[in-house]
């Protein structure tokens, strides 16, 4: 089933939750809606499900216009962040709920039982059919919720932050497991997440949203390697931002030429976005940008170094091999070997003040701030 949302707009008390958003999900595709809180991703998902009504715009399943279709008739399997299992029903009754609620073609009770056991087997919870939700762990509950959604043989599977309430380890297991289920059942699937790692690992295609608009829709590789906007760059992975000057088709930092492809940006001020792996330490005395080490911390097999560079002391983070000792206040030379330059006016282009401390923690505070605005 192909899902199409066309020109969807939705406002809450004057704030645009969705601003003329269009999205197509191909049959059998697994798509992630990724964005910070308040970006509109959940509103879009709920609109597709029929739980919200858009102010304007239309949702199509294949060529069927769903404008006047009740949620009961859409045949969507919806999975909620906090499971939303029926607490007073046993696992088997939870899963059978959708089959028993059918007004026509209601299967026989023996057939329902067979389906329930089959689904329990699929979600690897055989033997727990007589438990109540309160007697299950979080991960088990979410698997019951998925089995319940799959029981109605949905045309589309929609998941709203399905792993958001689970601890990190269970989340990783369930992620892999959801991918397997998807590959086996082939449902057109759309899930919402604010966790970029989850989106990149799980999805065929990632749709990055911000402030009610889609910033970029592409494969995980493209999203990471060629972010379309500064927002996507800083939302996906770690990033540092420094202001540069563009002139004559080249980018310069404090009049030092940077070896970067800048496309066809107009002359003037621009910003260079860097991932930790876009910067290397110069150890052979070659040319580079001098800087002063501000702090170091150990991340896995690498050492994450923060240095201040240039006249305006912009902070850049990069990874150095752990075996090289680096101390605070030490002078270093670095070379920029990657990164992207965005001109002023690009979505998410940061003011200088913000750019000076665009660490990953700060990014979150910033994302939350957008919600309040």
């Amino acid at each position, binding site marked *: 089933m192909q899902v199409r949302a066309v020109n969807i707009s939705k406002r809450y008390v004057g704030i645009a939750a969705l601003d003329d958003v269009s999205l197509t999900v191909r049959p059998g595709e697994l798509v992630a809606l990724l964005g910070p809180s308040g970006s509109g991703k959940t509103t879009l998902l709920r609109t597709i*499900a*029929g*739980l919200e009504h858009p102010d304007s715009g239309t949702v199509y399943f294949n060529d069927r216009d769903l404008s006047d279709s009740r*949620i*009961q*008739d*859409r*045949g*969507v*399997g*919806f999975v*909620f962040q*906090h499971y*939303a*299992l*029926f*607490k*007073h029903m046993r696992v088997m009754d939870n899963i059978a*709920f*959708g089959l028993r*609620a*059918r*007004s026509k073609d209601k299967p026989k009770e023996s057939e329902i039982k067979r389906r329930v056991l089959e689904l329990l087997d699929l979600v690897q919870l055989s033997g727990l059919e007589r438990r*109540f*939700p*309160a*007697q299950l762990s979080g991960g088990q509950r979410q698997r019951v*919720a998925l089995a*319940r*959604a799959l*029981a*109605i043989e949905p045309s589309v599977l929609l998941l709203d932050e399905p792993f958001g309430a689970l601890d990190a380890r269970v989340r990783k297991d369930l992620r892999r497991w959801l991918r397997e289920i998807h590959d086996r059942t082939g449902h057109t699937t759309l899930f919402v997440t604010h966790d970029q790692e989850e989106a990149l690992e799980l999805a065929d295609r990632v749709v990055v949203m911000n402030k009610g608009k889609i910033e970029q829709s592409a494969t995980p590789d493209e999203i990471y390697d060629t972010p379309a906007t500064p927002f996507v760059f800083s939302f996906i992975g770690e990033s540092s931002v420094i202001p540069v000057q563009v002139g004559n088709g080249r980018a310069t930092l404090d009049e030092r030429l940077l070896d970067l492809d800048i496309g066809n940006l107009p002359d003037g001020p621009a910003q260079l976005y860097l991932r930790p792996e876009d910067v290397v330490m110069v150890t052979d005395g070659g040319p580079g940008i001098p800087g002063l080490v501000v702090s170091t911390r150990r991340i896995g097999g690498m050492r994450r170094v923060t240095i201040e560079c240039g006249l305006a002391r912009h902070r850049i983070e990069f990874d150095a091999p752990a075996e090289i000792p680096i101390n605070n206040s030490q002078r270093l030379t670095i070379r920029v070997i990657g990164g992207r330059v965005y001109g002023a006016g690009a979505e998410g282009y940061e003011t200088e003040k913000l750019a000076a401390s665009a660490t990953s923690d700060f990014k979150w505070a910033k994302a939350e701030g957008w919600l309040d605005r």
Partner: protein
Amino acid sequence: MSEAAATRQQRKVRQAIGEGPATRFVLLTIALAFLGLMLVAPLLVVFVEAFGRGLGVYFQALALPDTMAALQLTLLVAAIAVPANLVFGVAAAWLIAKFDFKGKSFLLTLIDLPFAVSPVVSGLIFVLLFGANSTLGPWLEDNNIKILYAVPGIVIATIFITFPFIARELIPLMEQQGSSEEEAAVSLGASGWRTFFQVTLPNVKWGLLYGVLLCNARAMGEFGAVSVVSGHIRGVTNTLPLHIEILYNDNKAAAAFAVASLLAMLALVTLAVKTLLEARFAGEIAAQRRH
């Protein structure tokens, strides 16, 4: 760790979360004394006075036709008022907890009105509304509909007074539970009614039961508002509380206490039923809270 050390540590832990034995003793004494004086003693007095002159006098007082009529009327009023408020209360709570609309806080305030207004004033409202001098009065009289000083007036006043109990019990519960289970149900294809009866209602059944019991206790015990609208016609519009007052004013203290004990017993049975149900389904209630 030695046993003495273990005990010392245990004592330390206990002190960290509580007060010393002296403070605990004082607090406990105050609480128990207050309970004894304000709750247990009056209840005991009722039963002591009621049975003071022997079982014979007691049952004689209860068997009087006026008393039996008052008991029947009280049960009838409760039997109408409680189901009515069950429907209104559930509907109001559902509306307020699960939907957003303009005037929601106004409606919430309105639901509290019967609690805020003195019962006597509530009764007077209905006298002004249905009385002979009201706009409705002549029309009611022409059509031979008796509301004031008759059973309908008592029922209406009781419904008004007891309206908040069920709604107030359900609103916080439903708000806390949110709407996602209902959303799950409709996304699975369930109709609105099915969702309500199979998902919403089972989730609030304990709060609902508690609300019904409180509502019932108040419906049987309401005095002020009913007193204004009833007209005190013996054997016809006297409920148990009104009947007790009349007996007491007639210097029939023993009979008054006998009837009072009946009312007190109805209340005690109500509370006992609640406690029993809670004990019987403790596991289920806890499971629902934990989730």
